[in-house]
């Protein structure tokens, strides 16, 4: 019979907390940069300039295809050889996860923009607005509403993906857990706590998602 010993959790509580904070911080940075980059790529994908959209398309397809784990390892170990710059593990994780997220955001963005009828765009143009004005004031606000549920789903996914950064020794929750586990030999307790911490981090995200969806729907119903 296995003897559970939860003392180890209490003993290392600050290490867990620190790991959770790093996970959260990493997620926030990735969400921020990934979304901005994704929308830029999405806009480029829809531009009229010849060949430019193709480049965006290749970018989207590549970074959606590569497993994040491969990208992290490749970027951490191979990039310094090619580029001559060594990024810190944390910065590497931010860059790689942001790029990966951006590819998904760009695709979500494209689908959301395409779901807006073409004549919404034309109505802006025929009232004398520029293409940019029409995009930002007419299409984007409607598209964002359409893409928000998908986007929040991607963010939750990305929060879980931060655990992959443990392979390049980013001090997020999973990495902290494996460090503790290797010195205390109590993996079951430790990983159970990790699972609970992820749950605690993800649930507010899900609640936020449904709250925003409800709010958005209500706003349009106001007479």
């Amino acid at each position: 019979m296995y003897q559970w010993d939860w003392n180890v959790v209490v003993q290392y509580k600050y290490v867990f907390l620190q790991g959770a904070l790093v996970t959260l911080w990493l997620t926030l940075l990735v969400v921020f940069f990934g979304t901005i980059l994704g929308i830029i790529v999405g806009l480029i994908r829809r531009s009229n300039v010849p060949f430019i959209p193709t480049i965006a398309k290749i970018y989207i397809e590549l970074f959606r295809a590569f497993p994040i784990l491969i990208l992290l390892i490749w970027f951490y170990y191979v990039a310094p050889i090619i580029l001559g710059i060594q990024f810190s593990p944390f910065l590497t994780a931010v860059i790689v996860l942001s790029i990966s997220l951006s590819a998904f955001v760009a695709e979500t963005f494209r689908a959301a923009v395409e779901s807006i009828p073409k004549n919404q765009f034309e109505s802006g143009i025929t009232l004398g607005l520029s293409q940019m004005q029409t995009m930002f004031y007419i299409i984007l606000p409607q598209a964002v509403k359409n893409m928000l549920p998908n986007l929040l789903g991607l963010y939750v996914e990305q929060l879980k993906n931060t655990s992959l950064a443990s392979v390049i020794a980013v001090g997020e929750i999973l990495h902290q857990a494996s460090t503790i586990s290797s010195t205390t030999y109590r993996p079951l307790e430790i990983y159970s706590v990790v699972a609970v911490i992820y749950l605690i981090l993800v649930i507010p995200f899900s609640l936020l998602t449904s709250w925003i969806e409800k709010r958005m729907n209500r706003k349009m119903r106001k007479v």
Partner: protein
Amino acid sequence: MKKILEIKNLSKTFYDNKKQVALSDISFTLDEGEVVCLVGPSGSGKSTLLRCIAGLEATDKGGIVFLGKSNPLEDIKKSVSFVFQDYNLWPHKTVLENITFAPVKRKKMSIVEAEKLAISLLKRFDLYDKKDSYPDFLSGGQKQRVAIIRALAMQPKLLLLDEITSALDPELISSVLNLIKILAKEGQSMIVVTHHLKFATEIADRIIFLDGGKMIQEASARDFIYAQNNPRIEDYLQMFSLNKQEINIYEGADQFQAFQLGTLKRFKEGSSKCVVGSSGDRWFEAMGDFYKTYEEERIKRKISWRMIMYSESQRDHDLRLRCPELNVYKLIPKNFENPANYYVIEDVVVIQIFGEPGDEPAVIEIKNKDVAKSYMNYFNLLWEQSTLIV
């Protein structure tokens, strides 16, 4: 009058799946304050032509000259507004925001100024209480009126309307059409794509008929409807009347005159118009200055008047003496007098209503062989009992 738009040999071909000629060699001009209606069967290129003018479609050949400029895209963006069939209001903005947004962004109006303009337009077209509503809460007719107001708020030199009533329920159409009639009276230049022929005749200075991307006819509204001689277009016009019989009502002096001049062109040379109930000069008054044009045409085409009248007016008297072979009048006792008179010519019965002096005249046209025959019988009966005026 100042010319604001000139279309020169405009052509457009689509290459979606297969090559499809949408417009070929279209040319026409539009003066300031003029209303041109584009009519024709579905797929004839009306909407494509309108979209080319608005700059929404590139043209292959030919040019558009707007306000004297042969490269007018910027001016078109600034001074031409387009109203779509399916309104295209912005669902995330309120009615007021929909209207004020473009003037603020594009015309650099202050928000206060734009709202003042929007509110005056909304009040004028009876939509003020909807100013804070989102478009999803408006009826189709209200949406389309808001879309028109949104276009007007840009104070366009030219307004393009693309089948603006097609998506509306029949009972909502009139509210939208009335708005357009007001704009036409005020001298707003417009190009209107429509299936409502009656509406077209009421607002259009000219009607252009398109078929298969070609301009088949460009005519005044009067000639287009009342004096149509192109068999292809006659077929098209026929589709809008059930079977062969048709009842049309035309109100107001303008339409009264247009109707009389048009029908005269339609009837065969040498036919005879049998009138019952003529008294006084109301017909001549309703015809205004067009009376002389009418007479010239009538004499040229040898269309005779056989009239039963209660009393002969001075103008009738002059007419009878001038052309005795074309004007045969008979007198009938006053107790037969009716408030309206009618005439029968070929298979058409026309009831003319003049009302009290100063009222607008109106005509009811009934195209039906049997009705015309029964009216003719009654005419013949009265004719026999009447005394010839000599």
